[in-house]
């Protein structure tokens, strides 16, 4: 049963990260990120107590709320980035490459780390998709989504090897800090207008 749930979490991570890549609307972005943290929660609670894993979930959702509020406050409409590849086909193709590459990598890494394939693949997938996100955008909001995705992927695998409360607390602070930095980026250009 747990094994099936691990694969469901992986499916959830796959759908949300591809969705993050494809959807340019910020509401979809924030919503998909919030769903992504459910997968992260599931994998983290395998190695950490549920209370600490819940803290990670809540932190992730808080980051989403911060970004959403900042976006509403900034009140600007998103412009399409002219200099970056925009086609959905291109994004699906690159996402496919990431999925294949992370699968190949995780086959070897799961044996090396002694962790289940869905967990390792899920972690690498998030990190890969986050990096891809950073590679094809220059918008602050999108960059923060990419960084949060990478960190989410890292936290899944790091939770399996490190269970320190201090690390959990510091990682939560870093996640919230990134969201606040994103909020700051979105609102700073409004300072002079108000």
């Amino acid at each position, binding site marked *: 049963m747990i094994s099936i749930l691990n694969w469901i979490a992986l499916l959830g991570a796959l759908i949300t990260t591809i969705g993050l890549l494809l959807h340019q609307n910020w509401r979809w972005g924030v919503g998909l990120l919030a769903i992504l943290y459910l997968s992260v929660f599931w994998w983290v609670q395998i190695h950490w107590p549920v209370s600490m894993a819940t803290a990670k979930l809540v932190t992730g959702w808080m980051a989403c709320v911060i970004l959403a509020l900042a976006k509403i406050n900034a009140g600007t409409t998103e412009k399409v980035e002219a200099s970056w590849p925009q086609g959905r086909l291109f994004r699906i193709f690159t996402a496919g490459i990431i999925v294949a590459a992370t699968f190949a990598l995780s086959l070897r890494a799961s044996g090396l780390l002694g962790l289940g394939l869905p967990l390792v693949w899920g972690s690498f997938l998030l990190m890969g998709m986050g990096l891809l996100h950073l590679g094809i955008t220059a918008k602050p909001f999108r960059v923060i989504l990419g960084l949060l995705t990478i960190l989410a992927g*890292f936290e899944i695998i790091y939770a399996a090897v490190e269970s320190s409360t201090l690390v959990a607390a510091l990682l939560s602070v870093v996640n919230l800090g*990134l969201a606040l930095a994103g909020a700051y980026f979105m609102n700073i250009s409004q300072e002079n207008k108000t």
Partner: protein
Amino acid sequence: MSAPFLWIFLPLILAGLLLPLRNRNVVVLVSCVFTLFLTLAAWLLPIDTALTIGNWSFKLTSSFEILGRHLILAPADRSFLALIYGSSLFWFGATFSSGASRRLIPFGLAITALLVAALAVEPFLYAALIIEMAVLLSVPLLSTSGQKPGRGLIRFLIFQTLAMPFILFSGWLLAGIEANPGDLGLVQQAAILISLGFSFLLAVFPFYSWIPLLAEEASPIAVGFILWMFPTVTIFFGLGFLDHYTWLRDASSLGIILTTVGILMIFSGGLLAAFQHHLGRIMGYAVIMETGYSLLAIILGEKSGLGIFYLLFIPRILAMVLWAFSLTILKEHYPTLALDNMKGLARIWPFATSGLVLANLALVGMPMLAGFPTHQAIWEGLASRSLPAVFWVLMGNLGLFICVLRTVYTFAIVHEETQGGVRETILQRILVVIGIVAIFLLGLFPQWALPLWTRLPALFTHLGQ
């Protein structure tokens, strides 16, 4: 009281208190007095030893427990604390006559405290997380009010954030190596992860593209502070790795990698600087070259002692503060800092332009200026190992020197819009003159800096001993 409370939590508290204050002079004065106090305390107060004055006894304990882990500032760390808070004093003092103080000081103080915490935390690998927190605090410091964040700031955030997972994960692998030193596959993986982590963190070639961009976008004094503080702490953090892991210290390829990267940074930094048309970007490339010099100094002193490496810091802080301060004066009136807009400025801004040129020359390694003795020692040490290596390093320096010539030519050009008297305020003139005199004095009497750094080697148990 514990030492971490004094040098980490107290500055954080003060940073929080200074943030809402409106009076610029009060903020600068309080921060300068406070950092001076912390510097003197680091130099004079013993840690873990009772200090008795009459009937009154006082002891600074070295450890502070937080969430099951410890922040430890041992007696050997005192010289490092003096260096970090002493340099902060220079930066905060330089904001006396510029508008940057209201942001730089509270955030700068908090960043300094966090970076000290990064080197104090045990296990020391957690430093990567605390450095990331300091990076996040740098965001408001480096952004310009009313403007969208530039590419430099975004890249700074991305690259510094990417460093954290690599370093944390390499720490886990390193623990595995300690348990099983014969596993070469594990050693290789850990080495790759550490290299990537530090390449991002230290903005090593080719991950330094954010430095010139940031130097172009943000306030020069804020950028100068960040480009001084982060590389300095990161290098000490990296040396902690070398000191802690014997296999890493003894790796035969370490010397080759660090030397190659150092030379690449100096050469590419100098070469790219020679073609710049922006005074801020030139400072950025000079900082990249200085990181390269630090790497070379580490390798040259790995066996015989890190003396040259430690001696790099005083000339560097003097030159960088003077450079950033002079740029700040000019930026208040010429916001773009493009060389094309700087024609004839030596006539109306003689102090700022002189400070800028001399700081640039000091980092080139011009004789009689502060940077010369240390740079000369590195050139000499490198020449004894490889003449081609020193050739490429000198080519890099030539690139930066060409920048000085171009800058001087632009400043000295006769231009009709630059008529009239000297425009710097008295305070700005005094601060620039102090900086220039200090750069000359340290160039003429480099031995004056020696007593300050006799204690720094105690930071490391194995390295350079």
